[in-house]
């Protein structure tokens, strides 16, 4: 059944099994493994957030580090200066991100800035915001903002101070929530309208769809989701530098998993994050064994190219077909 959980549905059972496995993981995994799993889940969450805009509605953003940074700095700075709990700070971060997203969307969509040119606009916003934060003393400017690390005796989920396994469960919940939210969007009218716009804007317009409004909604939802991920990064890392949080590098890293996993699919961002991290870690170990510097980067690039050439639609559509789940979960 559309929109509801049907436990006899094979893909739903598969997902539940996976979720239970992930929930038990901290009991078995060591510190190193746990930190890698947090990285994977964070990458999956951010990829999902970007996927709403690019995968569902077809609007290309190459500046999503902007929303990561805004979410991170809003919640981080409010916590440092006023002791505001991160979840409230995240709401502020979402507000600021939504304001920026509305500005970018309104400019781009009103003046018909499309495709790569729209992506350039998103980069421009991310870059000048980085420069702004680099010179803003209240948030530490270029020397960074540091969150006080103390009170590790117990896990405080409201203030997000505590052990790695607490952070693991928080990001796991965010991924699960993001997945269910994305699925609900995709299966409702709004999801159909977004996909129609993605496939052919003119035809969507001729069917009475308010293209401008729907693109704005996609950009806004995507920005808000991404900035929540930014809050997580702030409290997990405890330090923020404009140079890294708003970087072009982060914007690209953020979308790679979804591209590898399958743009526009629900499971693609998760699969892509797993594959990319496994690849990265595996090649690091391999590189150390072989002992040639830089071999990791070359091999990483080669693997990515191979995946994109062989499976241009991403790994998930192919794997889904292999698992016989076609017609089930997207």
């Amino acid at each position, binding site marked *: 059944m559309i929109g509801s959980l049907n436990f006899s549905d094979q893909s739903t059972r598969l997902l539940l099994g996976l979720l239970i496995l992930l929930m038990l993981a901290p009991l078995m995994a060591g510190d190193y493994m746990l930190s890698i799993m947090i990285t994977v889940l964070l990458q999956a969450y951010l990829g999902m957030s970007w996927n709403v805009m690019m995968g569902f509605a077809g609007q290309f953003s190459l500046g999503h580090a902007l929303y990561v940074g805004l979410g991170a700095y809003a919640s981080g700075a409010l916590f440092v200066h006023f002791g505001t709990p991160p979840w409230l700070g995240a709401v502020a971060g979402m507000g600021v991100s939504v304001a920026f997203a509305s500005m970018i969307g309104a400019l781009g969509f009103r003046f018909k800035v499309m495709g790569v040119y729209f992506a350039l606009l998103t980069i421009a916003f991310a870059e000048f915001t980085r420069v702004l934060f680099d010179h803003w003393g209240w948030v530490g400017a270029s020397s960074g903002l540091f969150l006080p690390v103390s009170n590790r005796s117990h896990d405080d989920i409201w203030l997000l101070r505590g052990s790695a396994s607490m952070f693991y469960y928080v990001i796991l919940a965010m991924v699960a929530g993001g997945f269910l939210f994305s699925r609900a969007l995709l299966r*409702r009218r709004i999801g159909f309208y977004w996909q129609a716009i993605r*496939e052919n804007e003119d*035809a*969507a*317009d*001729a069917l009475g*769809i308010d293209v401008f409004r729907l693109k704005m909604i996609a950009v806004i939802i995507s920005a808000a989701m991404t900035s929540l991920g930014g809050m997580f990064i702030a409290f997990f890392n405890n330090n923020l530098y404009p140079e890294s949080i708003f970087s072009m590098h982060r914007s690209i890293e953020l979308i790679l998993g979804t591209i590898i996993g399958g743009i*526009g699919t629900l499971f693609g961002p998760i699969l892509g994050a797993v594959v990319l991290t496994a690849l990265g870690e595996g090649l690091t170990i391999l590189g150390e064994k072989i002992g040639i510097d830089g071999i990791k980067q070359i091999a990483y690039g080669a693997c990515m190219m191979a995946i994109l050439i062989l499976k241009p639609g991403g790994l998930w559509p192919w794997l889904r077909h292999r698992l016989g789940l076609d017609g089930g979960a997207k």
Partner: protein
Amino acid sequence: MTAPMLSVDNLGKSFRGLRAVNAVTFQVARGDIVALIGPNGAGKTTTFNLIAGALPPSDGRVLLDGHDVTGMGQAAICRQGVGRTFQIVKPFAGLTVEENVMVGALRHDGGHVEKARAASRKILDLLELGDKATHPAQSLTLPDRKRLEVARALATRPKLLLLDEVMAGLRPVECDRMVAILQGLNKESGLTILLIEHVMRAVMALSDHVVVLHHGEKIAEGTPAEVTSHPKVLECYLGEEHV
């Protein structure tokens, strides 16, 4: 006396120096099937785009059901009850055939997905695409894509349907089927249709009224029999020496 379904009043469009449509005036009565014909480059599709709101007219007015809809934009005009197809088909290639039609149907029933799916199935069956409902739209042949265009436009439940060369590329038998389908829709639900068509077989069978454009201007109108014997029409189609 009620207003005609569509009233095109002194409509004109210039693309820089080129006058594509000039002072075109005609009406489409409620429940009629009207054909817009003319040689290549006569301005038929441009006229269509002006009516559907895809292009803003340079001058003149478009009245739908007595209301001025000039320059309203395509989406707004669709919401007023005008469905259109594209001469160069524009399927949502990555979606299934059924999902394509659902996008149109979701305007109704409060956007309920399952109701839209059921409505789409009916329309697809009507257009003989029912067995291809779950196929990706990009796998369809051109004649099927033309049918899909019609299905998608119908799903928005228009009171006026604009069809831009939906018979092109269809075999005579398929063409007759399409004619029968459109006649059925017209008779049963009173759907008003304005179509651009080159296939005269379809024009003759379908139309109550024919408007002929040439070089952006209306040169004749009347019943199919009247226009096909009109000297100006013969001249522009066949050349002067035949008249």
